[in-house]
């Protein structure tokens, strides 16, 4: 029987038009003769069984007019291929796998070919091996169980006498090595690095690179063989050797020191490359082997970092590369770019740094967008070394904020933030506000929070600070980070009275405008801040004194018109009855409205407020309904308590946001944060009145005789059980309320929190907490933020996801030893979005003061697969309960 050939002819075109590179042209002719012979000799039945050739299949698929037609061709072929696999047809296996690989590329499932690939690899024919390994690289990944089988095949082929078979095996190992495979085959690879054959040597070196990437522990065994790679002449061996050494140096500081002594070798190789004349083999537009040059420059950077001696040894060569490289083409700029990075990273001479910054300056003005991008990127990495040099390019950088290309804009934005200082803050913020307004949604969150940070750090005046915050709130809209709202409220709260009046007027303008324009849904954060501020300082807004405050803005326009009390309430009504606003925003507004009832004086406004509040008694949302009912009681039976209960909030201490973990700008160490506990106690006094809290701030509390009434109100307000042990008053306050309430939003709303809900979000902002990482697995990171509090520790569980898909049905459970008591609040949600966060509050009471042990169990569903994680956390501080 005729033995099948793998793709009888190699080209697309008929032989007479074949313009292809064909090393075996004579053989092709012979083949043709042989083919014809086969056609004549072979019986008809054999020819009938011949499967479609790859080329014919591709033609058929390409000829399909519709997707359905294509699917039917593919399905038919797949069914046929499957059947040949079942029949163990080894004759056509190679061709069938090749077809399957094409089908796989079109996006159809091809996993059933995995084992067939292994069979091909095991075949003695080179053609089979070549296609088999190609299939293995495409169809297998390291999760597959077939790996054991392939490890054996690889082991065999790594010992082959044919260099190309060894090469195929190394190539496959480099592409799909799993940790187990790496362990099993490391010694083979190490042997091959020492091979005298450059073709094998270079491939083995890169295999070692991948093995170390996968299993860093295996590095040691490669060390002796690696050094000698640099003495080779062959560029393939040199570049792979440098790559391998770079990986090793990044892997461990010890190895880094070990390789410090190769700096002279590297310098020599680089010098030879620059000085040697034209060599056609490695030349790229007049530059000798840019690939090797860049790799060496990068390794030099790693070796010279924080090492004066090594840096000294490479100063000259870096200067030479920086001055001698031709910059008219991309290759030259590639090398310059790498050189600049190295100069800025090592302890180089100052003249060299000037040279480097100048190169970047030229890059920034280059017409090529790619070069400009690279310049911005590099300036960002060097800005900490020499800020003033980068400042010189500020105008150009700000110009780049307007670039139509998102990549350039992103770089320019990052760089702009790095350049802000107290001198240029006004100019920079103006540009950045323009940018924020026009930017895409993906930038808004990051940009606005960076602006808030910068404003806090460099604000020239508190008025400017407030104005800027309002602008950011307005322009970032709903993309704003949640904590900005509460931070802004804190800043207003702790500002002097005149500033508060100013804030309420400024915010009134925004509130009124968005209520009238109907774009309030897109700007909920500023509505929240405005509601809070007007609720607190509404009396200043409507009083005649407000005329005295200048509302002229930067453009010289004064848009403020003092509203009447009724008009303010009309606007509130409009917003509160809007169906689009979030529950949180409405909570802000409702409470603010209630507060206004004690700020405003005219009877019509009082009546209006009462009517609006009453309507919420039947609101569909339980939380709002509860507030509606409670507040309307304050207009009736318990009206005498209203003024005291709705007193102005005491000034909140501003907690520096500098401790945020995701801030990427460098921030001075934050001042030790004061706890806001006293304020909360004061608030608690307000409500609990006669409860034994020794805060002293009890002047607004009703007389003791009223105790019963107070308790009634408390019941009304929160269903609070006052007989519960008061060891952690806030906790007890919070606990029963949190449960029925939806705390899905992380919005910190001090107004609500202080009066009615759990104080947890506020305590979260207090620092420093002890952070214990309980779990970090499969893209899920669970941190426990522990806060001491005598016998009771408050633990905030924060689950953060870096997975690509959402985790649903997320459930966090915890258990403590018997001597402890554990109270768990409801979580902030059960769906963990990518990059999202779920928080849950735990309170651990421990009378015995023994160290805390916590066992946790987390279950969730990702991509439809249920996952269960368990862990025991013992790393809490031992003095947690003292």
């Amino acid at each position, binding site marked *: 029987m005729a033995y099948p050939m793998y793709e009888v002819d190699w080209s697309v075109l008929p032989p007479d038009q074949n313009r*292809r590179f064909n090393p075996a042209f004579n053989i092709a002719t012979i083949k043709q003769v042989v*083919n014809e012979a086969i056609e004549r000799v072979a019986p008809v039945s054999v020819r009938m069984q011949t499967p479609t050739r790859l080329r014919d299949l591709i033609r058929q698929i390409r000829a399909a007019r519709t997707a359905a037609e294509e699917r039917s061709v593919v399905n038919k072929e797949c069914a046929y291929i499957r059947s040949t696999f079942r029949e163990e047809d080894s004759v056509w296996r190679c061709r069938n796998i090749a077809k399957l690989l094409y089908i796989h*590329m079109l996006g159809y499932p091809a996993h059933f070919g995995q084992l067939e690939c292994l069979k091909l690899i095991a075949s003695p024919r080179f*053609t089979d091996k070549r296609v088999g390994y190609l299939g293995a690289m495409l169809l297998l990944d390291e999760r597959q169980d077939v790996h054991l089988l392939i490890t054996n095949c690889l082991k065999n082929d790594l010992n082959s006498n044919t260099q190309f078979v060894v090469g195929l095996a190394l190539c496959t190992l480099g592409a799909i090595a799993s940790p187990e495979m790496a362990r099993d085959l490391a010694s083979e690879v190490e042997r091959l690095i020492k091979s005298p054959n450059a073709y094998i040597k270079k491939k083995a070196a890169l*295999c070692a690179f991948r093995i170390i990437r996968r299993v860093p522990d295996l590095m040691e065994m490669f060390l002796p063989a690696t050094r000698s790679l640099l003495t080779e002449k062959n560029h*393939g061996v040199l570049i792979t050797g440098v790559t391998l050494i770079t990986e090793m140096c990044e892997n461990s500081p010890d190895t880094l020191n070990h390789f410090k002594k190769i700096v002279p070798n590297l310098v020599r190789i680089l010098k030879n490359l620059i000085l040697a004349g034209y060599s056609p083999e490695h030349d790229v537009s007049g530059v000798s082997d840019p690939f090797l040059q860049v790799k060496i420059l990068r390794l030099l950077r790693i070796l010279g970092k924080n090492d004066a001696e090594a840096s000294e040894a490479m100063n000259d060569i870096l200067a030479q590369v920086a001055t001698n490289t031709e910059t008219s083409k991309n290759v030259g700029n590639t090398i310059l770019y790498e050189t600049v990075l190295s100069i800025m990273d090592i302890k180089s001479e100052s003249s060299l740094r000037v040279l480097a910054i100048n190169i970047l300056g030229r890059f920034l003005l280059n017409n090529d967008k790619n070069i400009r991008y690279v310049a911005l990127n590099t300036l960002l990495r060097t800005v900490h070394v020499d800020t003033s040099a980068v400042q010189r390019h500020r105008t150009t950088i700000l110009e780049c904020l307007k670039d139509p290309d998102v990549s350039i804009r992103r770089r320019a934005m990052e760089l702009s933030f790095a350049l802000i200082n107290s001198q240029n803050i006004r100019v920079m913020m103006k540009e950045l506000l323009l940018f924020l307004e026009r930017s895409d949604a993906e930038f808004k969150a990051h940009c606005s929070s960076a602006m808030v940070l910068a404003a806090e750090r460099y604000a020239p005046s508190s008025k400017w600070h407030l104005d800027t915050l309002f602008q950011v709130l307005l322009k970032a809209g709903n993309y704003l980070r949640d904590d900005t709202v509460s931070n802004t409220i804190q800043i207003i709260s702790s500002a002097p009275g005149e500033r508060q009046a100013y804030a309420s007027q400024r915010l009134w303008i925004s509130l009124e405008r968005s209520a009238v324009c109907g774009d309030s849904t897109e700007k909920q954060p500023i509505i929240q801040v405005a509601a809070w501020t007007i609720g607190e300082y509404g009396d200043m807004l409507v009083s005649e004194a407000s005329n005295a405050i200048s509302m002229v803005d930067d453009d010289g326009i004064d848009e403020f018109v003092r509203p009447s009390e009724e008009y303010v309430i009309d606007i509130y009504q409009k917003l509160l009855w809007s169906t689009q606003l979030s529950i949180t925003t409405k909570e802000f507004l409702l409470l603010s409205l209630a507060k206004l009832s004690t700020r405003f004086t005219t009877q019509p406004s009082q009546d209006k407020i009462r009517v609006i509040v009453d309507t919420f008694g039947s609101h569909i949302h339980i939380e709002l309904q509860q507030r509606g009912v409670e507040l309307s009681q304050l207009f009736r039976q318990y009206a005498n308590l209203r003024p005291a209960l709705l007193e102005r909030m005491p000034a909140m201490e501003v907690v520096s946001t500098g401790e945020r973990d995701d801030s990427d700008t460098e921030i001075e160490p934050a001042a030790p944060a004061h706890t806001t506990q006293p304020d909360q106690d004061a608030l608690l006094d307000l409500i609990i009145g006669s409860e034994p809290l020794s805060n002293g701030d009890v002047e607004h509390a009703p007389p003791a005789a009223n105790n019963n009434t107070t308790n009634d109100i408390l019941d009304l307000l929160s269903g609070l059980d006052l007989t519960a042990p008061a060891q952690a008053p806030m906790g007890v306050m919070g606990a029963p309320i949190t449960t029925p309430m939806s705390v899905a939003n992380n919005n910190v709303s001090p107004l609500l929190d202080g009066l009615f809900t759990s104080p947890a979000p506020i305590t979260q902002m207090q620092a420093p907490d002890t952070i214990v990482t309980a779990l970090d697995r499969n893209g899920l990171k669970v941190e426990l933020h522990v806060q001491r509090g005598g016998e009771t520790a408050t633990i905030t569980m924060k689950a953060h996801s870096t997975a690509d898909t959402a985790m649903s049905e997320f459930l966090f459970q915890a258990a403590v030893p018997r001597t402890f008591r554990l109270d768990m609040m409801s979580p902030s949600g059960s769906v963990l979005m990518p990059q999202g966060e779920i928080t849950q509050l735990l309170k651990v009471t421990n009378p015995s003061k023994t160290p805390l042990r916590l066992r946790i169990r987390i279950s969730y569903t990702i991509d439809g697969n249920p996952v269960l994680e368990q862990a025991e956390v013992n790393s809490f501080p031992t003095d947690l309960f003292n």
Partner: protein
Amino acid sequence: MMQFMLLFSRQGKLRLQKWYVAHPDKLKKKITRELITTVLARKPKMCSFLEWKDVKVVYKRYASLYFCCAMEQEDNELLTLELIHRYVELLDKYFGSVCELDIIFNFEKAYFILDELVLGGELQETSKKNVLKAIAAQDLLQEDETVDEALRDVGLL
């Protein structure tokens, strides 16, 4: 290190995919789909780099084909452009003024060339000549084998 390389047409059809990191098939498809859409949406005047998720995508269009590499943050973007160009040059030399059809019908050859240029996501050979020599020698090995077997089958050997 290169994480993956994709070749796709202006119509968004995938022509070649090479992965140096292990991902489940589903994720690979998702990444491919999203990336192709994002790159195709970019205007010709824009720069060749794209920060996308945690990788840096470097892409370049040659005639109707997009060559697209996902690199790590530390990698030199401009050098990646050179690497793409080198691959195109090799394809061109091998096929003789390469076009998209060559890569469609001889995709396995395109893979073989890439595998002689890049291994495990890093460049392994900087000499064009050496790459082509290795490919030619392996092609010859296949041809020899084929002819040998054919001759043996018809009883000529």
